[in-house]
């Protein structure tokens, strides 16, 4: 498994002055948002897995967070670049 991406670059808009640009250090997102959310949701997910097991949703509930982490780690290297007249319209990159 790769390490999760540490930086997200986002640019939307045709015009440099009017467009929206963002360089987001994802480490802050992991530490300040994802980790607390995970700690809050984990007991609820375990409870949901126990309750929903007879209906076949137990495995999904247990494996949801590990698989989601796998998707997050796999985002490193994703790049979407749409340009017109050598100007960036949409640019999304996870490094």
């Amino acid at each position, binding site marked *: 498994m*790769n390490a999760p991406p540490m930086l997200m670059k986002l640019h939307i808009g045709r015009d440099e002055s009017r467009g929206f640009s963002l360089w987001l250090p994802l480490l802050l997102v992991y530490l300040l948002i994802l980790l607390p959310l995970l700690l809050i949701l984990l007991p609820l997910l375990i409870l949901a897995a126990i309750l929903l097991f007879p209906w*076949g949703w137990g495995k*999904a509930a247990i494996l949801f967070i590990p*698989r989601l982490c796998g998707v997050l780690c*796999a985002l490193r*290297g994703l*790049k979407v670049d749409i340009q*017109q*007249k050598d100007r960036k319209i949409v640019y999304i990159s996870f490094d």
Partner: protein
Amino acid sequence: MNENRKKILEMLAEKKITVDEAERLMQLVDEPETSRETKKSPKYLRVTIKPGEGGSGSDFECVNVRVPMALIRAGVKFSSLIPGDAADKIDTAMKDKGLNFSLKNLKEEDLEQLVAALSDLEVDIEGGKGKVNVYAE
């Protein structure tokens, strides 16, 4: 006679290796090097759209998408969490849209074969204003 074959015959003459071992070594030496190298699995799936001959470069929107293969693998593993009855509903909805594809057919065991097959994938579509290229690197 190349150097490798000479060395093998010398080792056989000095009885350092048996005849069977010498034969196996000869076969390995004779194989072309490229077939012995393991094919590196592709890291990214690239989709590019560029202006073609008929397209005007100034108005044309160029698209460059790079998707890590790890994301495709992770996505397939994530889709395996979908329970059976939900997967059936998704399959029905896709069939209604004309996509005759079943999520149940997408299995983790086949994932590496799928990724390996993608390494040979190369799609070039040229027509009208743009050129579409899909390839793995």
